[in-house]
């Protein structure tokens, strides 16, 4: 091939260049004989790390367990309330993915670092420490909800926790997360932005643009793909030519790792490592393999997967896994964990009560928050 190219080149040499005394070799676009891409990606496998590897005390492990339980019980109750038509619109449950939110949030400084995610956002909100009360009230569309009843399930926000939502258009928030990271760097406040999105978002152009900009401007962002293997009813294998998403990082000169998302310690370790890169202005990508046990939304019977697959995955339940870990390491006994579960259930029950008792937003509030300017509507 190389000799063939050489032979042909003079024919295509523009006369002007030849007159300038350049050799054919120099005039060639500089293409090597072949290109080999050899890249090893780090993985974070289930069981690879214990709590001490992640720098967690036993109390912290128990707190993480409680957080995961809270996310689970909150959503179980939310599903019930949806059935009773207390909750409207869409309700996308995070059940099965709790280790991702919990492990990730454990690796940042809540209130100084930033988090943004897509519409399956209850887990992230609760993991960040937003109260079950404000979250349930939002699902109920009440004034005490975390978005004052303006956002609903898909649009939880909390400025106090630096939780920038809760976004309903697949992939659209990923450039926004990149901009949040841009502002962290611009203001030199040492903050990073965890930008979560699902496997379905990988097909959106916004992801490519955001990745390129993050790498180009060296922004403190960690892109976290929560790969639950289905975009609504479409399995990743039916949607993507390349299903090993970490390979996309090659195109942006980013570090990337593959993580077992059913093990909270693996997630936490991976996010810790990648947050450290972000603080060093190296954006990176994490592909976290996880699984959602429920349908895409409440109306989804999930016929695109087999019962066997679902059962098999349930054995990998991240909460069950952490429970076993706690018992094995004698951080707490079964009675204590059961008591914790009861306590969490009670917290969730109270959140329903709180939501029920919170008033609907007054009608005049419809015009509030469209603009910061107070005299809206401008049209008399």
């Amino acid at each position, binding site marked *: 091939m190389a000799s063939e190219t050489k032979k042909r080149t003079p024919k295509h040499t523009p006369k002007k260049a030849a007159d300038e005394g350049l050799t054919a070799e120099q005039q060639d676009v500089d293409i090597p004989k072949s290109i080999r891409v050899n890249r090893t990606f780090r993985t974070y496998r289930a069981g690879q790390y214990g709590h001490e590897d992640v720098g967690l005390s036993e109390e912290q492990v128990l707190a993480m367990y409680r957080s995961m339980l809270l996310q689970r019980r909150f959503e179980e109750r939310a599903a019930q309330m949806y059935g009773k038509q207390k909750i409207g619109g869409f309700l996308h449950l995070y059940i099965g993915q709790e280790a991702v939110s919990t492990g990730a949030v454990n690796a940042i400084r809540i209130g100084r670092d*930033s988090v*943004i995610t897509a519409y399956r956002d209850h887990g992230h909100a609760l993991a960040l420490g937003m109260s079950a009360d404000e979250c349930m009230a939002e699902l109920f569309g009440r004034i005490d*909800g*975390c*978005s*004052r*009843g*303006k*956002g609903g399930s898909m*649009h939880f*926000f*909390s*400025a106090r926790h630096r939780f*920038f*939502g*809760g*976004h*309903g*258009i697949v992939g*659209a*928030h*990923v*450039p*926004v*997360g*990149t*901009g*949040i*990271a*841009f*502002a*962290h760097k*611009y*203001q030199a406040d040492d903050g990073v*932005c965890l930008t979560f999105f699902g496997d379905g978002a990988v097909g959106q*152009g*916004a992801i490519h*643009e*955001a990745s*390129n*900009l993050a790498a*180009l*401007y060296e922004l403190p962002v960690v892109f976290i793909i929560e790969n639950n293997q289905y975009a609504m009813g479409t399995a990743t294998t039916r949607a993507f030519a390349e299903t090993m998403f970490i390979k996309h990082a090659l195109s942006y000169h980013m570090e990337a790792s593959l993580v077992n998302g059913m093990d909270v310690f693996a997630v936490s370790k991976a996010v810790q490592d990648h947050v450290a890169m972000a603080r060093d202005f190296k954006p990176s990508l994490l592909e976290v393999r996880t699984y959602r046990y429920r349908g895409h939304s409440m109306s989804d019977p999930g016929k695109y997967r087999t019962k066997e697959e679902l059962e098999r995955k349930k054995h990998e339940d991240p909460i069950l896994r952490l429970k076993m870990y706690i018992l094995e390491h004698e951080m707490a006994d079964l009675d204590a964990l059961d008591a914790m579960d009861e306590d969490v259930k009670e917290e969730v029950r109270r959140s329903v009560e709180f939501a029920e008792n919170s008033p609907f937003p007054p009608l005049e509030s419809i015009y*509030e*928050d*469209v*603009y*910061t*300017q107070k005299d809206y509507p*401008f*049209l*008399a």
Partner: protein
Amino acid sequence: MAELQFREAIRAAMVEEMERDATIFLMGEEVAQYNGAYKVSEGMLDKFGPRRVIDTPISENGFAGLGIGAALNGLRPIIEFMTFNFSFVAFDQLINNAAKIRYMSGGQFKIPIVFRGPNGAAGQLAATHNTSTESIYATIPGLKVVAPSNPDDAKGLLKSAIRDDDPVLFLESEVMYGMRGEVSEEEDYLIPIGKARVAREGTDVTLVAHSKSYWIAMRVADRLAEEGYSAEVIDPRTIRPLDVDTILDSIRKTNRCVIIDESNPYASISSEITYQIQDRAFDFLDAPIVRITAKDTPAPYAKNLMAYYMPQEDDAYRACKKVMYVD
């Protein structure tokens, strides 16, 4: 006062504001090293450095979204679209994120961002490069839309837009960048967003026109004056929020209205202004409102077709005669 080109007035506004507030940065295609596709940002890279004057790849969806995120997190971005035709690549960011995140968060976040760049027709560029976007964006609650007609307004309105805590789309014009005009050098020269300007007082007919169309209205008013008719010309300056009161005051005086707007006519600014007038000043109208707009087609390429596509001065002139019943 100083005589400046339109582009220099915009640059002066950006430079003054960036000197005043370190959270402001300018980002867009060719804004830095190339000194701006239309030389609006000429010299700004030298003045402020690459941290604050930032070139982007051709990636409107990406950098518009980046700007929104930066605004959510404490900065005041100025995002330049090389033209607003390309803003459609970022349409989702403008419509779903810039306009709605504040609302969906129950007012927890603000998005102080300016998207600016040339808008509307700019010659034989055919359909994709000649869109007047103001009617499209003005329909979205959460956005403000500003479209100045002269260098002085451009400076005063852009400074207000940059200081505004809500997202503002600031629409310029390729064909007006070279236009010269007296521009205030007053420090803090701020023209409020949402206030129309009565550019010329008159009693017989009201002409409402913004951006380039404003100049058609002024020529029509001159022609009418030669014939002894007194036209009032109102430049809305801001499309959303629209200063309806100033328009209504004029209608109550002249009882007649002609709107000139280079947007496509269907469901447009001219439709909206017409609705507002009939709703609140119906009894003051002595003639149906007439609008002179671009044709209801994509913009064509051929020179004669493109000229025909644009709002015509003669048509506007005849419309005024018609509503005055003197044609």
